[in-house]
């Protein structure tokens, strides 16, 4: 927690499951750890149903209710970067096979029992040839077998997402258009159903204040992560120079992407943002002022790495209750640190100099964590 920071960033994976990965990120600043959290939740593209044409709906739920529920259904989105375009970047007028997927829901109930309409009833249908764009594109060849299909549809062990229930004589005839998007646009596009993020489990830094009746320790049980750090002595004085150094992540996905893909894409997305900024400085510099020397290299955006692999449409899915919409309140929250929020200047200890300059001077190891000196 103090002293030994500023080394190389470290990552220790504690658990990998088909829908989640748990890891500890060390030797980075709270700001960076939070950037990673935010980018994984809000900036990674997936496909989700975005337009719904309802031909028949005699169920008890109104059209818009069903349309909303269809939007929440997670669709397999592995390799989304290459496999589909944003419609806004496409040459077509209103959607084509390169930027959209069509899913149909055609069900009717003919017996006396109530029938569940689920995500398993959604069928991906090919684009009609006349709407097919003549534009050559590689996107289609980059798609996995089940790209755009509801998560868990091809796995018996995965319970489908319940959309509505119909009785005898009721019918649904619906055509859905799925598009690519990110969770900043709509929470349904988030690949994460939850990202847990914790630091300083003993609250040594006093970033939070516990409410209690008589006894803090009795009323606030420690988290599992507290085992990773030394508990403070009862008489330990408050170290106001200490900074958080270990961050406990658990990334849980809704099945649209695998957890490894989410972490890797998150980092790549951060790098893309940085590269765009440098590019912006280069371009902006030309006509505005000489704000940029010409010889500054634009950092490369790493190509997709194959050391990890994407989500498996065959073996993994989710329950209706945990559809990606659940994360909406999570990512919009600005930042767990006080520095992140609001419209005030958030500045980091530069005033007192206590940590501001002392921090870099003690840096023992170079390049990756900033300034060596």
């Amino acid at each position, binding site marked *: 927690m103090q002293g030994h920071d500023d080394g190389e960033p470290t990552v220790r994976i504690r658990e990998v499951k088909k829908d989640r990965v748990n890891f500890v990120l060390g030797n980075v600043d709270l700001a960076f750890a939070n950037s990673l959290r935010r980018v994984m939740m809000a900036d990674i593209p997936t496909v989700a149903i975005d337009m719904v044409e309802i031909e028949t709906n005699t169920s008890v739920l109104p059209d818009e209710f069903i349309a909303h529920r269809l939007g929440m259904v997670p669709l397999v989105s592995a390799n989304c970067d290459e496999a589909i375009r944003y419609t806004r970047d496409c040459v077509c007028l209103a959607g084509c096979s390169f930027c959209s997927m069509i899913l149909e829901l055609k069900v009717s109930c003919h017996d006396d029992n109530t029938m569940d309409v689920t995500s398993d009833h959604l069928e991906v249908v090919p684009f009609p040839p006349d709407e097919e764009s003549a534009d050559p594109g590689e996107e289609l060849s980059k798609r996995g077998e089940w790209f755009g299909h509801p998560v868990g549809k091809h796995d018996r062990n995965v319970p489908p997402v319940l959309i509505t229930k119909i009785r005898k004589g009721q019918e649904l005839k619906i055509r859905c258009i799925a598009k690519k998007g990110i969770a900043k646009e709509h929470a349904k596009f988030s690949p994460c159903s939850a990202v847990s993020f914790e630091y300083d489990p003993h609250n040594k830094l006093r970033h939070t204040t516990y409410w209690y009746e008589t006894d803090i320790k009795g009323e606030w049980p420690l988290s599992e992560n507290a085992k990773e750090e030394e508990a403070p002595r009862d008489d330990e004085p408050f170290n106001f120079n200490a900074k958080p150094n270990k961050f406990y992540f658990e990334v849980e996905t809704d099945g649209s992407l695998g957890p490894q893909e989410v972490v890797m894409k998150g*980092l790549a997305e951060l790098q893309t943002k940085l590269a765009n900024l440098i590019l912006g400085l280069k371009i902006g510099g030309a006509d505005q002022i000489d704000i940029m020397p010409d010889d500054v290299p634009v950092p490369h955006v790493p190509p997709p790495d194959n*050391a990890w692999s994407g989500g498996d449409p065959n073996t993994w899915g989710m329950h209706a209750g945990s559809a990606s919409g659940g994360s909406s309140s999570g990512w919009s929250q600005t930042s767990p640190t006080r520095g992140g929020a609001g419209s005030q200047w958030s500045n*980091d200890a530069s005033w007192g100099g206590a940590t501001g300059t002392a921090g870099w001077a003690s840096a023992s190891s170079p390049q*990756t964590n900033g300034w060596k000196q």
Partner: protein
Amino acid sequence: MAETVEKIKLLKSSPDLSAATYQIHDESHTIGNSLRWMIMKNPKVEFCGYSVPHPSENVINIRIQMYDNASSVDALIDALSQLDKVCEAVEDSYLASLREGKFERWEERY
């Protein structure tokens, strides 16, 4: 239809750019806070802070003030490439930990 917007522009600065405010389009706390942190690590930087001026405007402002009339642009560029290296280091470290494989593992494929 849509006029092109500059990704980053100079709002206000001293003539030698040693103290300047930049406005970055289409970014948020995600980049702002990390960038502020990395710029502050530079010993030549006197002050760095960022703000989101209004939640319904898709921009952030970054203020940089340098010691000894150094260029704030250099500090900005350095910080951007340093952050890029941090991302790379985290990725490498993640993949190394994955290869070590001291955890419960599930096979995944496309």
